[in-house]
């Protein structure tokens, strides 16, 4: 279905609410229109027939009061006759006798009466007509008086009626608005009811996404919802099984790879003990093996750590740690013990909740990264930033281009520039692990330009402090 482009995308709940409101509006508009029309017709009919009846009655009175057949005005003065008539306010009689007009109210004389009505009545035909005068609707009723060669008219104002109809229509409009609102309310409530099971499924999906793989939605006995809940639970179960299988696989791989590595690590140590007795070529080969067994070990370690994240089985051993002590210990046990560490004075004693060994691996990875791609770390900075702690590692290398700044934290990705350089033996897991570990610690990591307008990269870790959490 094509969506009209100028309409904003509305949610299901909004659409159901609007549909109910529009339905209520249409229905109340039709009902109000019909009620108004009916009332109008009824009131007009009533008013017209009562005005007509009175006019006939008054015409008869006039007929009796005036001398019959006479063309003269003797006997009864038409003005006196008119004044003696019983007319309600808003009703203005006009009398025509022998071609002379006698209005009771000078403002409502013969010229107010439409000419066509006058002509029709003078020709001997009783008639009535609605017309507009000075903005108000008037009704004129005329009865011919052949005995006095004239006619009797009454001009009745319908303004009062219009006012009544107007107030009725205002009430009806208000009622229509109210029922529209009520319709919207019912729609909103109904949408909520309908969407509640969907929200339950949404919550379950969120729980699964955050690692609670055993989450299921409650089975429903509603025939419309049961298949949805059932298929969702089936999907969740399949996902959980798959993740468990992956986790088992990672654990198996762990054991299988560690055993040969153990043999290699022990054997290489025996060979190293004999290094002094070896010819130079054997020494060179031994050194290569030592270095690559270490690389192999690190790679297995990193891969297993990553697969633990994927299986959602990563658990941190969190404890309260003084961040300055941790960073100092991490630097002194790393491969780059000489890098200067600047610690902000007000950071003394600031405590973070962290997995000591994993966080030190993070810092070691950043130092390692600086050594491989940034000509070595130039400085480690540690300072407080509001409720958080910033740990920054700066290097002297070419820096990281803005388009690489997110990419380098992905697995097996060393950034476009780093990939072309030779002699770099990283596999591109170090920064991915940094990102995963920091995320699990509730912190953030990013890379920016080195401070002080010097070339180089600055990797920053932000960790929440204990006071903040």
């Amino acid at each position, binding site marked *: 279905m094509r969506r009209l482009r100028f309409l904003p995308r509305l949610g299901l709940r909004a659409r159901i609410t609007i549909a109910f409101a529009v339905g209520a509006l249409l229905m109340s508009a039709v009902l109000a229109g019909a009620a108004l029309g009916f009332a109008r017709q009824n009131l007009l009919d009533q008013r017209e027939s009562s005005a007509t009846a009175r006019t006939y009655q008054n015409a008869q009175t006039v007929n009796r009061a005036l001398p019959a057949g006479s063309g003269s005005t003797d006997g009864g003065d038409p003005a006196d006759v008119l004044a003696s008539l019983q007319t309600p306010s808003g009703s203005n009689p006009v009398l025509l006798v022998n071609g002379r007009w006698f209005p009771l109210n000078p403002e409502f004389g013969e010229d107010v009466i439409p000419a066509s009505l006058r002509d029709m009545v003078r020709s001997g035909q009783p008639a009535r007509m609605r017309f507009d005068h000075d903005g108000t609707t008037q009704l004129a009723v005329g009865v011919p008086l052949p005995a006095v060669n004239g006619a009797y008219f009454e001009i009745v104002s319908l303004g009062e009626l219009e006012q009544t109809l107007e107030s009725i229509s205002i009430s009806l409009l208000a009622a229509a608005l109210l029922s529209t609102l009520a319709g919207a309310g019912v729609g909103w409530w109904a949408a909520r009811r309908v969407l509640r099971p969907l929200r339950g499924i949404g919550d379950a999906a969120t729980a699964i996404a955050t690692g609670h793989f055993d989450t299921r939605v409650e089975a429903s006995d509603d025939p419309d919802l049961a298949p949805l809940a059932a298929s969702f639970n089936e999907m969740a179960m399949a996902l959980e099984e798959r993740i468990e299988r992956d986790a088992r696989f990672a654990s198996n791989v762990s*054991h299988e790879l*560690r*055993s040969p590595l153990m043999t290699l*690590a022990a054997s290489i140590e*025996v060979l190293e003990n004999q290094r002094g007795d070896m010819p130079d070529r054997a020494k060179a080969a031994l050194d290569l093996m030592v270095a690559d067994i270490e690389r192999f*070990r690190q790679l297995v370690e990193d891969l297993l750590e990553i697969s633990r994240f994927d299986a959602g089985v990563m658990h941190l*051993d969190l404890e309260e740690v003084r961040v300055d002590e941790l960073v100092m210990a991490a630097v002194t046990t790393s491969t780059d013990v000489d890098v200067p560490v600047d610690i902000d004075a007000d950071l003394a004693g600031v405590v973070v909740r962290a997995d000591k060994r994993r966080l030190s691996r993070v810092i070691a990875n950043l130092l390692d990264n600086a050594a491989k791609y940034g000509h070595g770390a130039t400085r480690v900075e540690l300072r407080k930033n509001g409720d958080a702690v910033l740990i920054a590692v700066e290097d002297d290398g070419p820096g990281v281009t803005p388009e690489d700044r997110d990419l380098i934290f992905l697995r097996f990705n060393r950034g476009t520039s780093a990939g072309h350089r030779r002699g770099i033996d990283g596999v591109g897991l170090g920064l991915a692990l940094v990102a995963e570990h920091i995320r699990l610690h509730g912190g953030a990591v990013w890379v920016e330009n080195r401070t002080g307008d010097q070339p180089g990269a600055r990797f920053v870790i932000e960790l929440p402090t204990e006071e903040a959490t």
Partner: protein
Amino acid sequence: MSVGTRILSVEDDERIRTAVKLALEDEGWAVEEADTGEEALNAFQRQPADVVLIDIMLPGIDGFDVCRAIRRVSDVPIVMVTARADTHDVVAGLEAGADDYLTKPFAPKELSARIRALLRRVRSTDSGSSHLRFGDLEIIPDEGVVRRGGEEIHLTKTEFRLLVELATSPGRVFSREGLLERVWGYGYFGDGRLVDVHVRRLRTKVEADPANPRHVVTVRGLGYKLQA
């Protein structure tokens, strides 16, 4: 120093066992091998070793059971070898009576350092006194004897060293890092679970009610202390 110190190495993978034996012998230890739990227990019965190295994943009797069986008859230092450090294996192994653990693959030189730390003897100069008293608790460092209410209780060597370490400054709070360094010889990144499980084991022996310890007290967020 440790020439003649005998290590019983229990490992079912033959190549690992052989490589570790070669490397440990280079470090100056005498190594006896066992490839199953049953064989390890038999060998230990024939002639108790000075240190036992046990791989947790063994066919038949597993490493935990071997550990418990040896603990029943001996206070010898036991080092467990696990495949992974982040599982429950570590705590289970320590609770079965192991003194320390290593994760495969480890460097045999690291293992040697661990063993040397575990074999360190307690002397009265460490504690400053030849006779220490904490209420009903009596510690004689030189003889390696602890009595509660006059009755001798058996501690492993590591439990004993932990107790004496705490006894050097009664009432002072020792951090887990400090205890890890002084008892196990670890630096800043030692595993604090070693201290926690050993304190737990120690309490079951020296406390009348281990659930409500009177002597070995936890100071939340700081560490442990010993009091009368």
